[in-house]
């Protein structure tokens, strides 16, 4: 066991930059014994094994997908990856340029935080992250935790939401001094062109750098069928072109075996046309939007080689969006927004005895938002988050108890700021291993958390209200994970979770009249749901394996606001009752293939379930084939994808049709 941890720890230090603390504390305690191991293949196997173990023993529901899973399961982009996870409701406005947001277990999208290389992404304006900005090519793994993850040595901000999506990009390989290059070209339907490169090199034994860049061009002018009562017409998306680039520069410095400093600068620029919602008789959109985002971050960690670990991180983030509507040349509808964030966090982990770990994390964030809107009050916010966490792990039992104390100080340069908020949020998670073989774990968790109103809800002209309070949530989860290796050649994994969530003081926009709106804390939502996942790995011959991954979610997300109202008890808008995904993959020495499908049941566009506002459910299928050729020390990989194989016309958001059948081809070269 000791030796096993050594390998894992070595893997962490050697391969990953700071900030990615996914491994059990037990592993971290061995940091002083690190030695470098050169057999990277072995390491990877260990890591995958370790991850799976983590998923099973996690006290809160945890789902993970690695770069390898993306290939095996035929996953093409981040939203596709999230489709393969249970409990997820995706909002997708269609096509490569369409905004994509994710909500988990009936909470709104603003209750999910997205962690990118160890530090949360933020958007104080809308409170939600557009996942269409993050391509998968540079992503090493994606994981989703609902509630509190097992790793407790994390910033306070990372525990401040109901669910956390963690994106980890590829880090530089650290085991040689040679240059490494990955170059890829991907082309696809509707003018999709996406060159990508990643270069990394260690300049010395303890200092390495990496650069990556990508560019995406897409016309996005996909055809769709428009159902107009009894009339069906064939149309095409118009004014939908996008030009997007993204680059990152990062470094990692390991001055001693127990300390590490790394950093990253990031830039994203997306200049695109907005096709808008589909009309029946006109296709005359002239809207455009340019989104830019730049950030720089630094992370440092160290330990006393015994029982104390320290970590500090900081980030500066700048984002802007410029909306233009060419239909109104006088600029009356144009909008520009600029937001800034300063962020710093420090964490201390103390492990007085083998079975107990204690963590204190303190975070400070400053956000501000400026806009070209008349009457903009230039709002800003100071957030101070502190978390105190205890983790107790003995034999088969694990318990994590946490208190998070949030102070949110709100003000505006001109005019009135929102209320300040001070609040304590408790959470507890438990896990107990009932049996070892087959592996059976029981888990239970409770978390109370809230989200602050975003700046749009607070301050947007004729819409926001500074009187808003946070939206409060409670979540209870009870789950079982089970895994059996039924021979040396096969393995079956099943997980089940049942949950009860409650949202109160839900922020709802209400109209004074058609043009004057405000936001109030009024809504109540109850979520009853269950998630089931299944995974089968079966060797079917020499170097041949069959893999089946599936999940199913049932969610009753019902409105509990007003028992007198006709909407009481109805499923809230845009939440399906049933969602599921299944992929069947065959790995072999010739061509790896995967067939996969996702399904979502009927949804309503309105809380009232008004006649005609239902959005039909859909089943979408895809096919993926890839093969890797090894030529000396170089690798060439060819991959082809067919998306929406049956050319099913469907919508995720009303009046925003999704593309029909399309294809993608990619060629990747690794030196």
């Amino acid at each position, binding site marked *: 066991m000791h030796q096993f941890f050594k390998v894992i720890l070595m893997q962490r230090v050697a391969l990953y930059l700071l900030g990615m603390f996914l491994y059990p504390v037990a592993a971290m305690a061995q940091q002083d014994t690190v030695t470098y191991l050169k057999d990277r293949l072995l390491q990877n196997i260990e890591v995958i094994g370790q991850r799976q173990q983590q998923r099973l023993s996690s006290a809160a529901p945890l789902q993970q997908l690695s770069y390898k899973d993306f290939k095996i399961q035929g996953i093409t982009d981040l939203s596709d990856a999230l489709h393969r996870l249970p409990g997820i409701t995706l909002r997708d406005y269609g096509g490569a340029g369409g905004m994509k947001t994710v909500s988990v277990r009936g909470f709104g999208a603003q209750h999910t935080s997205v962690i990118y290389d160890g530090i949360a992404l933020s958007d104080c304006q809308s409170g939600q992250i557009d996942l269409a900005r993050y391509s998968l090519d540079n992503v090493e793994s994606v994981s989703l935790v609902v509630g509190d993850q097992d790793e407790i040595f994390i910033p306070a901000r990372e525990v401040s939401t109901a669910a956390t999506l963690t994106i980890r990009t590829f880090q530089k390989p650290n085991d040689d001094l040679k240059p490494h290059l990955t170059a890829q070209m991907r082309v696809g339907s509707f003018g999709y062109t996406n060159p990508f490169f990643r270069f990394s090199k260690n300049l010395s034994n303890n200092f390495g750098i990496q650069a990556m860049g990508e560019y995406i061009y897409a016309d996005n002018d996909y055809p769709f069928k428009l159902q107009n009562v009894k009339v069906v017409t064939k149309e095409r998306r118009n004014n939908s072109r996008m030009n997007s680039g993204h680059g990152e520069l990062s470094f990692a410095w390991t001055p001693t075996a127990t300390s590490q400093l790394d950093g990253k600068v990031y830039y994203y620029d997306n200049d695109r046309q907005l096709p808008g919602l589909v009309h*029946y*008789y*006109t296709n005359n959109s002239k809207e455009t939007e340019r989104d830019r985002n730049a950030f720089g971050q630094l992370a440092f960690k160290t330990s006393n080689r015994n029982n104390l670990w320290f970590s500090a991180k900081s980030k500066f983030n700048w984002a802007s969006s410029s909306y233009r509507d060419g239909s109104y040349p006088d600029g009356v509808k144009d909008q520009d927004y600029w937001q800034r964030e300063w962020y710093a966090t420090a964490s201390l982990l103390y492990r007085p005895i083998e079975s107990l770990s204690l963590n204190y994390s303190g975070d400070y964030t400053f956000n501000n938002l400026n806009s070209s809107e008349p009457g903009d009050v230039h709002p800003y916010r100071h957030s101070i988050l502190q978390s105190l966490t205890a983790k107790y792990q003995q034999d088969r039992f694990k318990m994590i108890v946490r208190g998070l104390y949030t102070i949110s100080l709100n003000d505006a340069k001109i005019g009135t700021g929102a209320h300040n908020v001070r609040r304590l949020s408790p959470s507890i998670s438990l896990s107990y291993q009932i049996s070892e073989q087959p592996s059976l774990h029981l888990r239970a968790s409770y978390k109370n958390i809230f989200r602050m109103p975003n700046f749009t809800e607070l301050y947007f002209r004729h819409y926001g209200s500074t009187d808003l309070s946070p939206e409060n949530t409670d979540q209870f989860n009870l789950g079982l994970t089970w895994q059996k290796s039924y021979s040396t050649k096969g393995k079956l994994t099943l997980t089940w979770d049942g949950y009860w969530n409650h949202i109160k003081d839900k922020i709802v926009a209400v109209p004074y009249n058609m043009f004057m709106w405000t936001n109030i804390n009024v809504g109540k939502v109850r979520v009853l749901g269950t998630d089931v996942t299944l995974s089968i790995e079966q060797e079917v011959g020499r170097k041949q394996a069959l893999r089946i991954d599936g999940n199913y979610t049932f969610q009753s997300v019902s409105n509990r606001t007003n028992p007198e109202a006709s909407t009481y008890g109805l499923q809230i808008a845009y939440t399906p009752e049933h969602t599921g995904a299944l992929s069947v993959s065959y790995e072999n020495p010739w061509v790896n293939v995967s067939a996969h499908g996702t399904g979502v049941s009927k949804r309503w*566009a309105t809380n009232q379930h008004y006649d005609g506002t239902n*959005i039909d459910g859909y089943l979408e299928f895809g096919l993926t084939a890839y093969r890797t050729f090894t030529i000396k020390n170089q690798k060439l990989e060819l991959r082809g994808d067919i998306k929406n194989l049956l050319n099913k016309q469907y919508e995720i958001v009303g*009046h925003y049709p999704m593309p029909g059948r399309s294809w993608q081809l990619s060629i990747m070269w690794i030196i």
Partner: protein
Amino acid sequence: MKKNIFKSMLLAAFAMGIAACSSDPVGPEPTPEYFSYGAFVVNSGNQTNKINGTLDYIEFGSNTIINNVFEKVNGRSLGITANDAFVYGSKLYIAVDSEQLVEVVDAKTLQSLKQIKLDGAARHLTACEGKMFVSSYSGDVCRIDTTSLTVDKTIKVGDYPEGMATYGNLVFVTNSGYGSGHTFTVIDGTTGNVTGTHECPTNPTDIVCDGNYLYLLTSGTYKADWSGYEEDPAIYRINPDYLDFPLVTKGTAVASNFMKLYSFNANYYNPDITYRETDTNSGMYKELDLSKDIKYPCAIAADPITGHLWVSSYNLSEYGYADYSAPGYIVEYDSNMNKLHEYNTGVGPIAIAFFNNLK
């Protein structure tokens, strides 16, 4: 003076209308009979909630409403965000804002005759000198030939033109400027030429005629920190010199009948909605107690033949505010404000157009 000629014409028409309603015998000369067949209700729908615009028809003979009648007859939707309707001759014209078109249907059969496409959002309609006029957010008023059903002239007006009214052979167009406009444009209905553009109170959005004067509705302006109105939404009389605009009453919507104005004030910072009938001849007004029937008013219209008042309303959401994605309703009152009927409409009953034989 043209206006005076028109005034006397209108007076005659209204007088005949009133005569038609009277049960007394009217002498040997047969008087032409004026009557209303029914009323069309345009429902805007709600584009963000995937609710299309619809058309309802209320038949006066049977006092029944047929909902979603355009779709039922034509097998296709009116489109997203219907905004206004106008019956002229045997045809009904419907302005569909987001579809940037005017849908022309046969007023009796409701069969679609033509979709007339514009360059911007289609806002409001009026008729003058045998032609239809539609205001468009392209900054134009388009003149529609009622026979060929094509735009035969595009007339440049101010920014974001909204409601219009006809007075004699003149068409009056409000230039809202998307909240910041302060002019109205006058078009000669015969030639289609602009005869003048005149200053007026800020943010004019509608204009009505009581057979004597024109009245301008402004939707107000907000304070810099938008904590309230800088200028309240109000109704002003347009004096014939176009220079003076005496305040008639505060209000957010207005309808006219002969020498009468009906208005309501659904002011965003004031939860009490008031309804008012103003006698434009005497300047006297009386408050109407419609709040018992109307949850949150949407549109108001007076039937020129029967003198009945029609007020459409939203229903309230579970939160107690107007629900813009639920079906609304419309209430018919007689001229003494007795409630006669109530009909359930589509979502957002934003405009009412009477179908009668009064041209």
